[in-house]
């Protein structure tokens, strides 16, 4: 009895600390000189948080929890399901899950597991996520449900894993992945009890997400030209899964015109690569700004890679659409968990010839091995290209902020040479 009491109290304590983290971050964002009221929509989504019951009430559809971006969002939409990508950016929440997890664990998923423990609707049948969809990307994601159970969160909902082929270029992989995507459609169909969406419905869903990508591209350009601070860009992209896609699009459409014609922000341009960044842990973004660095481009799956981009199809049959989705979400993905990910570097080198950035900041979350591994390859090749490279290994605590800031400041100095 005492034990339960202690757990309950810890949960309450973590919850209030998490809320404080969020409150402080939101407050600091609102106090920025470049804040304007149209951004409230995104701030409100983030400050209301990722509680499953809040999300399902907001979108009015069953919500499937999703890890990683290889499962086509359009397919969820066409099947009448809202995909919600699980993430964690709260240092406080990590406290709940850490005792039940490996010590050298990815801080992002440790925090995500903590956030799930905070989610009261996940306990019973009263709400929460209708299902779980997990593409097998990194080891942490593969073992996610197991870790969740170890954290005392027994999942009662159906789980669908997509076996992600880690070779993108092989035809056999493409065929297998397409089978997985068909499997996902069947799973989502069984979940809702509706018959499978016809090709027109699917094409419509695809068009909606293309629209989202289109508006997001405009926003990306505003960031690339320095009219939007990268910090806001992270806020906006982080909020994507919190609401119905069309509502998010309209909110974004009201932001874009406000930014056009704005003066360019200060700072030396850099490219940010590496592990994703999630609200409310925007430590790295703040440090970059404080060091006088301006992120104009990135390859984080939490920001610029949020959408796979143009899903081109030539064959509008049901099969053609499914194939286009499967291939685009697989072949075009630059996640370091792929074995043949050599083209990732192109996403940095090619723009560097056209853009103003001369350096790459690579951030690795401690425990995120795929990014850590690739950082060495990138470093070698980017230095060959004459770009400056700095790797920062960090986690969600703030104790290394001074160390990181010193390095970023010196890095800025080196860029100015």
């Amino acid at each position, binding site marked *: 009895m005492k034990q339960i009491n202690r757990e309950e109290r810890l949960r309450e304590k973590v919850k209030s600390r998490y809320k404080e983290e969020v409150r402080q971050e939101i407050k600091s964002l609102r106090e920025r000189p470049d804040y304007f009221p149209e951004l409230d929509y995104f701030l409100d989504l983030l400050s209301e948080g990722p509680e499953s019951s809040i999300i399902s009430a907001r979108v009015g559809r069953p919500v499937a929890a999703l890890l990683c971006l290889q499962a086509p969002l359009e397919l969820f939409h066409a099947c009448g399901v809202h995909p919600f990508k699980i993430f964690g950016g709260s240092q406080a929440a990590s406290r709940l899950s850490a005792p039940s997890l490996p010590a050298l664990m990815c801080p992002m998923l440790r925090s995500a597991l903590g956030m799930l423990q905070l989610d009261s609707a996940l306990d019973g049948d009263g709400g929460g996520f209708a299902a779980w969809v997990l593409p097998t990307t990194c080891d942490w994601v593969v073992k996610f449900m197991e870790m969740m159970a170890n954290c005392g969160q027994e999942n009662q909902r159906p789980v669908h894993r997509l076996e992600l082929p880690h070779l993108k270029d092989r035809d056999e992989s493409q065929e297998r992945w397409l089978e997985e995507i068909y499997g996902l459609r069947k799973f989502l169909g069984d979940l809702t009890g509706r018959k499978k969406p016809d090709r027109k419905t699917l094409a419509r869903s695809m068009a909606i997400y293309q629209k989202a990508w289109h508006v997001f591209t405009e926003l990306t350009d505003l960031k690339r030209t320095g009219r939007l601070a990268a910090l806001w860009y992270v806020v906006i992209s982080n909020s994507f899964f919190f609401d119905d896609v069309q509502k998010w699009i309209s909110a974004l459409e009201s932001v874009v015109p406000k930014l056009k014609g704005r003066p360019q922000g200060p700072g030396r341009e850099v490219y940010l690569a590496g592990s994703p960044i999630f609200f409310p842990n925007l430590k790295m973004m703040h440090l970059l700004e404080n060091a006088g660095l301006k992120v104009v481009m990135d390859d984080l799956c939490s920001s610029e890679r949020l959408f796979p981009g143009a899903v081109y199809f030539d064959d509008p049959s*049901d099969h053609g659409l499914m194939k286009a989705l499967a291939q685009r979400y697989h072949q075009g993905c630059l996640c370091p968990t792929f074995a043949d990910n050599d083209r990732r570097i192109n996403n940095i080198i090619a723009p560097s010839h056209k853009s103003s950035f001369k350096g790459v900041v690579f951030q690795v979350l401690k425990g995120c091995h795929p990014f850590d591994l690739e950082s060495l390859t990138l470093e070698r090749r980017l230095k060959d290209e004459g770009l400056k490279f700095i790797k920062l290994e960090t986690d969600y605590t703030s104790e290394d902020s001074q160390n990181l800031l010193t390095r970023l400041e010196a890095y800025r100095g080196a860029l100015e040479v």
Partner: protein
Amino acid sequence: MTVTKLRLTVQHLGFLIFTYGGYLRISLGAYLPCLSCPFVYSCTGYCYLMIFQRSLGLLLLPLSAALGGPRPGDQVLENALNLFSGLAAFVVLVIVLGKSWCGWLCPFGLLQDWISRLRQAFGLRESEMLLKHKLKLSWIKYAVLIYLVIVPLTVSLGWLSTEFILAFCNICPAKAIMPLFVGDTQYLAVDVSSTAAAVFSILLLAITAGMLVGMFFKERFFCLFCPMMALINLLKPFYLLKVVKEPTACHGCGNCRRTCSMDNETIYRERIKRNVYDADCMGCFKCAEACAADQSLAVKFGPFKIFSSSRHYAARLFAKVSHEAN
């Protein structure tokens, strides 16, 4: 205006001019590198394959005369010279537009695209041809080209009757189908004037039927067999209009490969070379349009870049598509 819209417009204008321009007394010569079928009586310009076969059919006459055959008249020699003057015109046309004759101008190519549209309207999927199968088939058009050369040459030696001169035209499905656009159905009937004519016309009907089925399920199915494509391919190093790739800008998303009507893979797989103008490419440049990696694919005319792939372009294109879909 998107590249696709421009291409559709050009294709349709081309179709109208090639097929009906004769009514307006337009003449574009007999050296066109596309299947503008001479059997369409109002046609504006002739598919070069016809004059090519005719010239070949006369080419070796002097040789056969030396071997004791009939002496060729002056007119015949003049026709043989046509082979060369015609070839020069053809070569110039090919060098200027390259394979885009197939993707942008060929009326028979447009017909194939219509048939694909019809399949799409039914919501039927395109049949997929695995690369390994396709590679096995890519020699066919060269075999057809060799057939197209050998038979008229044999005629010129006097070893075959002159009915065989148009060895390819006689079995080309364009001959059966294209005249229908001017209401001419005569090539759908079996020609019983001679045995050879009867065999050719039956063969033509069978091939046409087969091709129609193929074209319904597979985009640009006939192009796999087209000797014109084989002939154009021989000039590949000299094309002015071509697609090039900057492999260091490619993210490998696969849009280019998926959109390719000819199922070319080089454009996707190439990681080092800039030259990705595949032998089976039809120069439509849908790949460059579908590419969302800035500057990764470009269309060049000589040294000038006339189109470059970009995120912006792709995003605008898709915004338009989504607008149409909703």
